[in-house]
């Protein structure tokens, strides 16, 4: 099983540490989600994986080969659709797609035609004539049709309406089941996308907080709520991820498995959604409620 491995990757832009000692493992057939706040390091991470930029320290290997020393190996297998608009604006979409067909060895013209129809993408227009949403759609079509063994998407659903987003998720799974490959997708839409992923990676301030299947993440945290005094007693000697007080009542997010907890009178345990877990893990210290006194 081929692996894409990041070992000890660090990258700084002057005084800013974009990535700090990142270790990540991706297996060749899987869909991985990359979650992080704005500026957490998601784009830097994807750029380093695809050799758009180079890390200060550490190595990236694909199938055992260092991608910097053997750039042709990763280039032949990788398709990275960035968030930025890096396409020549004056070129027609049809021409850009045919260039992609030449450039990517496993490209499927059939998939491209089907997707263009599904998303109503007018291939006769020039790239700079497309709206922001359709530029995202164009990147989606290209990325999925490329059939590249490593396909990276940086915020693929930016500016897309709900129908198109849902279509993307459907087409992503369809593409993955027909032609398994490694997908890494960064997105801000956490609740929508969580079910797509084999594993989710949560990155915060350049460091990896979690890499695990979404279910594992959710089975390792839960809400405890009740009277503040009771809750505080419960929270002793536990890892608390966040809490919220209203009058005399308190709700806290705590690490542990909800189903192995002994029921305690006066306390209610309930499960967390992945989006709430993400917010708790990456919110500013002091909590989200601190401004509303």
């Amino acid at each position, binding site marked *: 099983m081929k692996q894409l491995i990041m070992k000890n990757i660090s990258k700084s832009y002057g005084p800013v540490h974009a990535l700090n000692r990142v270790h990540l493992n991706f297996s060749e057939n899987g869909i991985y989600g990359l979650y992080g706040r704005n500026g957490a390091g998601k784009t830097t991470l994807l750029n380093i994986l695809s050799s*758009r930029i180079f890390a200060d320290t550490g190595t990236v290997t694909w199938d055992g080969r260092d991608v910097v020393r053997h*750039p*042709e190996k990763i280039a032949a297998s990788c398709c*990275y659709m960035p968030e930025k608009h890096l396409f020549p604006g004056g070129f027609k979409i049809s021409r850009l797609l045919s260039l992609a067909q*030449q450039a990517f060895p496993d490209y499927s013209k059939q998939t491209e035609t089907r997707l263009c129809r599904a998303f109503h993408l007018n291939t006769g227009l020039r790239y700079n004539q497309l709206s922001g949403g359709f530029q995202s759609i164009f990147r989606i079509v290209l990325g999925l049709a490329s059939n590249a063994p490593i396909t990276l998407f940086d915020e693929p659903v930016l500016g897309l309406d709900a129908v198109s987003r849902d279509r993307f998720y459907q087409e992503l799974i369809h593409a993955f089941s027909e032609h398994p490959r490694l997908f890494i997708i960064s997105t801000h839409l956490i609740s929508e996308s969580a079910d797509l992923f084999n594993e989710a990676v949560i990155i915060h301030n350049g460091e990896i907080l979690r890499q695990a299947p979404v279910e594992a993440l959710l089975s390792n945290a839960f809400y405890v709520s009740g009277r503040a005094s009771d809750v505080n007693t419960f929270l002793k000697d536990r890892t608390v991820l966040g809490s919220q007080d209203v009058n005399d009542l308190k709700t806290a997010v705590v690490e542990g498995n909800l189903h192995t907890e002994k029921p305690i009178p006066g306390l209610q345990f309930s499960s967390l959604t992945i989006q709430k877990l993400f917010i708790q893990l990456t919110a500013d210290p002091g909590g989200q409620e601190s401004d509303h006194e």
Partner: protein
Amino acid sequence: MNKIKASLAYNMRVYWQMSLWYLWIYPLSMGLTYFALIQTRIISVESGSLIYRIWGSVVFLFAIFIRFKEDFEFLLVLSNTRWQIFISRLITALGFSTLFSVLIVLERVLVDHFNRILGYQNITDPLHRFAPYTVNPAMQFFYFLVLCCCCCAAGMWLGSLFYRFGNKFMSAFWLLFSAFLLIMFPMMMWTLHQKSLLIRTLSAIGQFLSHFHVAAASGTLLLLAVGFSALFWLNIRRLPQQ
């Protein structure tokens, strides 16, 4: 290999579109200028002549090969390695240098032919004395080929430097260039004039240019072209996307 084919298809199209502008605007403006000059009797049809002009396009080639950002970033999106980007740009530069060299030699052949038929002499254009032309068309073609390649390579290297070091570097470069052209160069001329050396200097330069050794110059230019290409490669081999 397919990556290079795709990159070439893209590069050729971009540069062809840019060259088209030059290839019709330049002859058109030249033709109109001469027509105007003849109409206003500044030059007469008999005393005038057809002269070689298109060789000024080497400057145009230098200028268009400075373009780097859009091509580099798009070719990276198509997952080209930096080596593949380098090779495809080199081939594009060679292709367009060949095209323009063919046009330059063709122009010379046609102009000489028409001058002979119409009985003109190349006397009214002072710059023509210093144009690097030689009798042998093959040598002529080779000379202009390496001259164009050299200009393309220099432009590519400069463009990649602008990309790497950003807008501040680019502004500093053009500022220095303009300063030299508009301030330092005229001041140099004035100093020479003060010392009554101007005429002698200009005629020495004139002597050099009119006894131009095309073959030797070709060799030098070839070395320069290779040098600039090497510098271009060294700059882009680990160039991060901005």
